[in-house]
């Protein structure tokens, strides 16, 4: 099952400059492993000591996986995963 992964500026250079790539996996963790296999070095920018990097937010469709099942969050057919940097919000 291929899942579309949308990546913003900082992460695009890790996947050959593309805005979106497809990868396989039934969980977010498996998806990141598959991306690592295609783009070596990808995962070390996203995962630190087995945890999601604190300045990286991964969204399943539009929901932050930190409030779902984190890296074990399950993926369904047609899901879109977005990887975004943590930025200061306007205020």
């Amino acid at each position, binding site marked *: 099952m291929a899942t579309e992964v949308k990546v*913003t*500026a*900082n992460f695009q250079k890790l996947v050959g400059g593309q*805005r979106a790539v497809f990868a396989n996996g039934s969980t977010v963790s498996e998806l990141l492993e598959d991306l690592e296999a295609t783009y070596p070095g990808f995962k070390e*920018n996203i995962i630190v000591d087995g945890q999601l*990097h*604190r*300045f*990286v*937010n991964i*969204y399943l469709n*539009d*929901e*932050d996986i*930190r*409030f779902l099942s984190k890296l074990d969050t399950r993926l369904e057919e047609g899901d879109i995963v*977005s990887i*975004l*940097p*943590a*930025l*200061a*919000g*306007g*205020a």
Partner: protein
Amino acid sequence: MLFSSILDAIGNTPLVELRSFNAKPGIRLFAKLEGQNPTGSLKDRIALYMIRAAEESGELTRGKVILEPTSGNTGISLALVALVKGYKLLCVLPDNVTRERELLLRSYGADVVYAKGAASTNDAIFLAQQMLAEEPDRYYMPYQYGNPNNPRAHYETTAEEIIRDLPQVDVFVAGLGTGGTLTGVGRRLKEHNPAIKVVAAAPHPGDLVQGLRSLEEGFIPPVLDETILDGRIVVDSRNSFAATKELLEKEGIFSGISSGAVLATAQRVADRIGEGNVVALLADGGWKYLSTDLWTKTYDELAPELVEGKVWW
């Protein structure tokens, strides 16, 4: 209502039911209209709290310039408080904010510097911190992203008003900027009823945003207590604009663009729960966004560089 100062008119904003958004029986959606504050945003609350606390602690003394990184709303609120209390204010803005904000700041007598090439509020924060480090005796920086009086203002005022007006709240939704609203209101609401869910609406930075030079420049505001949150939903500009427009067309409520994101998030949450009261905090009115043509054009008529990667709250 008789007040002895405009500062006393801060807070006590209306909580209005959005009847046309109540999609299914058992769900009621309410909007807290923070645009009804004196400068038109919720930031009046924290500006007053932060400045009053700094006066009391002695950090802010006569002759010091108040310095603050802001994308607009907090600066405008600080400008009001500074004007009434007789301080000078210097705001550090990212250079991708709407024109109205600089005009408003200057109208209230504040000075403005831009963090050039700023892709986000991050760079405005770093520049303000650098300016403070260089001349620590000249400036007092409230620093809304790290000032405990930011969430305290919402804990003591915003949340109390919600509980007073609607004792049965099931979900609270607000936009994520400094995290002060979600942390302060969320903490107080959960003390009132631990079952209340607190959900953040976060802006999607968009494809055109430059992002960070490196991931290590990422930023999580110190005042944000993520343990208060039960969920975070990211909303892009297109959906935020659509909901902002819908809110005016259906309910006659003229709000800022983050309010559209908050409303879209509240509807998502409402779809998921069987019944209950959902409170959406709408941070500001639409006045500061008129130059975007949001209400007079369709989204696709707007130039991408005008809508993508802009700071909307």
